[in-house]
């Protein structure tokens, strides 16, 4: 505060104008922030969301024949916004020789077409662009970039339970 400017009537007018303009801007900025920040949180923060029953029943594991994949349909609950939707899901279930059970997601990892099991060739075949997957889901040939996706599974007693679909990450060797 060592060089106080000499106040002429004119400069007094401009500093007062400056004060008003600054005060208007500051107050409006506070109001905008008080509206804007909640709006952004409201639009971008994920919904707290109740988790539905994560596991859907998908049949009796003793019924699956070893090494012969079957397409199964199961009922699951999905939360869609404020709705709980009961919907059908499908999976290709394989029981291996060691009686380990795997459930593959029903879509080809190339462009999402539905593939199927070719019992004669003993592989999964996608008719869209001829991707071929082996019985353990690995890419044998064709444009598919990664192995088949797998559902989380667990066995309770003899009941097979199917959970979330996990994207396969393993890159094609």
């Amino acid at each position: 505060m060592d060089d106080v400017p000499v106040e002429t009537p004119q400069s007094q007018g401009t500093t007062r104008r400056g004060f008003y303009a600054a005060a208007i801007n500051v107050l409006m900025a506070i109001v905008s922030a008080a509206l804007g920040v909640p709006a952004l949180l409201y639009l971008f923060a994920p919904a707290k969301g109740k988790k539905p029953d994560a596991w859907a029943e998908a049949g009796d594991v003793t019924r699956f024949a070893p090494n012969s994949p079957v397409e199964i349909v199961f009922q699951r609950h999905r939360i869609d916004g404020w709705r709980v939707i009961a919907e059908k899901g499908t999976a290709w279930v394989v029981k291996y020789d060691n009686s380990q059970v795997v459930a593959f997601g029903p879509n080809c990892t190339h462009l999402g077409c539905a593939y199927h099991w070719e019992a004669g060739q003993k592989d999964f075949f996608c008719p869209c662009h001829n991707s071929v997957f082996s019985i353990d889901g690995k890419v044998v040939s064709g444009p598919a970039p990664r192995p088949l996706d797998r559902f989380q599974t667990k066995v309770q007693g003899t009941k097979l339970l199917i959970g979330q679909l996990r994207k396969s990450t393993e890159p094609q060797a």
Partner: protein
Amino acid sequence: MKRRLAEFGDWLEHRTGLIGQVQHFLYEEIPDSSGWHQVLGSLALFLFMVQAFTGILLAFNYAPTPGDAYDSLRYILTELTAGSLIRGLHHWGASMIIVVVVLHMVQVFLWGAYKKPREGTWMIGVVLLLVTLAYGLTGYLLPWDNRAYWGTTVTTQIAAMSPGIGAYLTQLLGAADGVGVVTFARFYAVHVLILPPATILLVALHVYLVRKHGVAPAPGDELKPKKRFFPVQVFKDTVVIFLAFALLFAMAIAVHVPLEQVADPTDTAYIPRPEWYFLFLFQMLKLFNGPLEVVGAIVLPGLAVLALMLAPFLDRGKVVKVTRRFAAIGIVLLAVVGWSALTMAAVKSTPPQEAAVDYSYPTDWISLTPDQIATSTISDIPAFVRQGATIYQAKHCNACHAVNGAGGKLGPALNGLAKRQTRSWVEDHFVDPQKLSPGTIMPPYPMSSQDRDNLTSYLFSLPDR
């Protein structure tokens, strides 16, 4: 940097004339007497913008059909971050805008600012007041809870009384067979498709006329030099806008807006009450009975609106100082007294609200058994539920009765009790079961009236299953 900005300003001005327009707007000349009493119009416009903003945000997560409307609002309130705050801003903003619009009107009335040549500005203002009330009326139905449903049932039946056009009006409101999906769709369409563009158009006309005729001068202004709108008056507007917004924000956080149970057209015990600013009309209706009812419902409010509309033509005297406008001051005081008396009478005659579940909070506890509730640590359980469940546990009601699937089978399961019995029946039944259900094996359960109240309220909150 500053030079670049100035260059850009020139470029923009040359092509659009925008900057010149803004300057023209800001540097408008206003009378010397202008000041704090003239901030209310700007405040009303600001609050309208807040309503539009929060309304659009709500619409982003709102499904406008009965049932889904309720579920989606519940989703906004219980699962979205800041959802409760945004609904609070919209709810209390609606109340605040009505207060401000009325105060704006009172100010203009007291100062006599509606006089020649500003009659049109005033009349558009009256229409804007009606539009503001229409927002309140239509928005009231949109949560689709019991309060919304029953309040709107009364509203549509009042509309049906309109002489001559009643039947057509209910047809137009989609309420010919009572409030239902059609009514809901119409109210929603009016609330978001008709009223907002109408408001924008009317406000534009209103502001255009204010600009055309200039802010109304007070006696003595003609001798003094004019001021400019910017910066001092804009500063005053901004300060008041800021304070009002701070109050609104505080209310949205601190004063909780409940959500009742979903609309239940079979709930014959529900006592509907309109929003506070319509209570005086509601009360006035009680002063007129039988064939005179239409006077209180339609004729008097209609005459009041007509009188407001014609005020500039009824009061044709010269503009005098506000402190000397005794008739205007008298009319305002009379209106204030009348409004307050009617509103207070209505509040007094409102029966105490029975304890009910507030669905604007998460209600995961609803599926718990009384034992679980009595010992639960969930913080959102209403006090009456916790106390009711504790009494239920202490009296061993579960020896004979089941709640949410747990308990004995000797007596009837208690879910959905509210649908089967009245409250007083249940309370009397605790005192003397034999009197109400002869031959029952249930013994009397003496308890304090407060315990009985809590237990009954808790049992009545159990969902039908």
